[in-house]
């Protein structure tokens, strides 16, 4: 023990090193608290998870049972918006692809096709190659009247108001089902993680708090134990006050009173013995062996009070 004794109080500070002064007492109480809390957390946590699982299953079933009714696209007509269009059944559209040559009809003429022979033709129509006169074809242009096509009547069904919103709602509803299921699973996992995390925090927090709390009881007991050891050896030092925040203050007061009582016993003995020694010396019996013994006794007792 070090430090100056200001007004009967020595300012020892608490340090982490000596928090466990009385291991048996402190650990017993702390472990009881920690064990009890762990049991409570585990038991109720298991219950929470069981109910959470049930609630999740119910919610899942509820979500899976959700009916995302498709809106009727047109008045008086139900449309299955989820049905994929079958492209194979669609009518073939005639179209001319690039690079593809349309078949050329044979030119009118002889059956043998002689009229279509290739070769240079003179301006006068003679075949320069063969020297034969070429046949002439007179084309008579005549004005023809092509009848105008009949107007095509396109029937567009009447679309209901709010159909767009209904279609969006439908798809949101459809896509929302797996999202909701995922959300439920995440929530269940979150509950489990929160339970585990809070359980761990609680256990460690309680362990630290329990040790600190019991230290405030074990500290005064330790201090009294030190004084008791001194008293056992016949030393009655000054008793200092407890630290701020310590418990067992009343118990410590009892100890201080007891210590003072023992000190008073020593002082009473010293006073009585000194009186006898003084009287014996005055009467001329100062050299008596009994007086010498009393002197030794007084010296020992006075030393014990230093």
């Amino acid at each position, binding site marked *: 023990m070090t430090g100056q004794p200001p007004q009967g109080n020595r300012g020892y500070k608490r340090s982490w090193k000596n928090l466990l002064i009385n291991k048996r007492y402190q650990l017993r109480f702390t472990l009881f*608290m920690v064990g009890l809390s762990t049991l409570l957390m585990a038991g*109720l946590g298991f219950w929470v998870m069981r109910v*959470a699982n049930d609630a999740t299953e119910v919610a899942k079933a509820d979500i899976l049972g959700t009916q995302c009714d498709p809106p009727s696209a047109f008045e008086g007509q139900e449309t299955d918006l989820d049905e994929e269009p079958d492209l194979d059944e669609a009518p073939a559209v005639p179209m001319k692809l690039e690079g593809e040559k349309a078949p050329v009809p044979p030119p009118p003429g002889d059956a043998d096709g002689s009229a279509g022979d290739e070769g240079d033709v003179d301006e006068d129509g003679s075949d320069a190659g063969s020297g034969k006169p070429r046949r002439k074809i007179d084309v008579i242009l005549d004005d023809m009247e092509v009848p105008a096509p009949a107007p095509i009547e396109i029937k567009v069904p009447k679309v209901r108001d709010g159909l767009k919103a209904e279609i969006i709602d439908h798809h949101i509803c459809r896509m929302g089902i797996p999202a909701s299921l995922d959300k439920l699973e995440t929530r269940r996992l979150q509950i489990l993680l929160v339970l585990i995390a809070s359980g761990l925090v609680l256990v460690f927090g309680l362990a630290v708090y329990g040790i600190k709390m019991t230290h405030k009881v074990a500290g005064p007991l330790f201090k009294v134990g030190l004084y008791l050891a001194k008293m056992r050896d016949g030393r009655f030092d000054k008793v200092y006050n407890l630290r701020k925040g310590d418990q067992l203050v009343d118990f410590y007061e009892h100890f201080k009173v007891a210590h003072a*009582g023992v000190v008073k*016993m020593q002082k009473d003995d010293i006073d009585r013995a000194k009186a006898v020694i003084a009287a*014996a010396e005055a009467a001329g019996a100062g050299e008596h062996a009994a007086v010498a013994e009393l002197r030794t006794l007084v010296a020992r*007792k006075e030393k014990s009070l230093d």
Partner: protein
Amino acid sequence: MTDPAPIPPAVGNAATGPRARYKRKLSNYLLDKRLQLRYVLVVTILSGLIAGALGYLIYKQSADASASIENSMKSDIFANMQDFTDKINSNLQSGDQMLVYKMIGAGIGLVIILSLYLVIMTHKVAGPLFKVSMYFDRMADGRLTVVTPLRKGDMLQDFYQSFQETHDAIRARAKADVETMDKALVALRDQQNQADYRGEQRQKLVDALDGLEQHLTDRKKKLADR
């Protein structure tokens, strides 16, 4: 700590030292109210908080599940089954209510059992402290009697043993001192009678020896076994 009551007179054989042991009574389980109730309150409040928070979670989950079922029963499928849905809803509500009652009952039971157990447990610490406090009060009065052992199951056995050893050492030393002074008293009385002391000095020695004799008589009484 409560003020210690004086130790009742010993019941057992005084010569053998330890008197009859006191048995635990329900009436004096709270020996050190501050120490015991503090610990009991901390543990009870903590347990109550844990149970309350987790109980609320349980109730919320259960109520959510019930609400989900109730909502799903509002659909057109159950439109023509009003009695059936009413019955189901009623069952769900009563189930949730029963869950709350069960949890409140379990919580109250937990607090009561825990408090009783903790009072008993802390009593095993407060008991030895109470006993040592009573011995301290006796020591303050100069009475150093025989220290009886703790009851079975008490805690702080090491501390109590340390106290007992100290108490016995002080007592033994006090007895030895009394014996030394007693011998000196007898020797000086003889010397007083044999020598021819007269006058004031003789009277002073007689007074001092009378005072020492009275002091030793008192001390012997206080050092008696009981």
